């Protein structure tokens, strides 16, 4: 049903999307066919599934750096200018994941300000990727994933 619906409409109104929400969601997520939605002529959105979002965001990898101190461990994320810290690597990693999740919340709650900022706007793709990963319980794995052109972990080989 949603396929036929999409064939005839390129952009649908927010009112129409609300009324046909099940079809719209099925098209965007189930059929992987992005849905463009407009409201009032000057507000436009695009509904896509997490899989498609991850595909688009794949180039935005994280390159965390681990610093071993005498009695502590710190982990820096250059893409977001954030760090986690703890007595052990496990503690530092958990602290970093919490810090990234907090920053994602902070960024998206004040997106108008952050997206205008000369040193923050470029964070957006990484923020969005972390947001999707956090929503699916994969944020830790994302932050410590090998580079795409690097070696393959045994479990994935």
């Amino acid at each position, binding site marked *: 049903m949603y396929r036929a619906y999409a064939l005839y409409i390129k952009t649908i109104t927010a009112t129409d999307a609300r009324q046909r929400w099940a079809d719209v969601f099925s098209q965007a997520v189930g059929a992987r066919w992005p849905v463009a939605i407009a409201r009032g002529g000057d507000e436009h959105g695009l509904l896509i599934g997490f899989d498609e979002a991850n595909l688009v965001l794949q180039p935005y990898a*994280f*390159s*965390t*750096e*681990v*610093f*071993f*101190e*005498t*009695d*502590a*461990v*710190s*982990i*820096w994320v*250059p893409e977001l*200018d954030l*760090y986690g*810290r703890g007595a*052990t*690597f496990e503690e530092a*990693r958990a*602290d970093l994941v*919490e*810090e990234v999740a*907090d*920053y994602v*919340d*902070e960024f998206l*709650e004040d997106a108008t*300000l*952050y997206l*205008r*900022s*000369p*040193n*923050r706007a470029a964070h957006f793709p990484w923020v969005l990727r972390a947001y999707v990963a956090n929503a699916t319980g994969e944020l830790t794995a994302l*932050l*410590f*994933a*090998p*580079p795409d052109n*690097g*070696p*393959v*972990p*045994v479990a994935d*080989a």
Partner: protein
Amino acid sequence: MPTPRFTELSRFCEIDGWEEVQRGRGGTGDHRRYRKVLADGTILRTRVSHGAGEIGDPGLWARIWRHQLGLETEAAFWEALRTGRPVDRGDASVDPPAGPSIPGWVVAGLFQAGRTEAEIRSLTADEATELLYELWAGERGDGE
């Protein structure tokens, strides 16, 4: 120069006119978060741990004063603490510093492969990466 204590980082934020940011999910967790918006829209952001510990690693501290505090020199941090006056801040977007660190995916991979933190601490980034490659190759049976 020594690395600062978190109480000094907190005092710097107060002197330099940073605002404390509340967490969206409530509470403060183990840290207080501070933010300062510069005239050009640059947003500086850092956090300070509760308690009296210090930022022990010089490499991490270099990243904090450059990227989070937006300072051109480390001396500007200590100068602000000494004088009690806000920083005359230049461009925050400077080149990232080089430093002795190990990629996070390498450390995570070595832990997953059963290596201890003490072992990993003794390695350089190249040594750690090489060891992980060897472990993965060995477990796959490459070259047999």
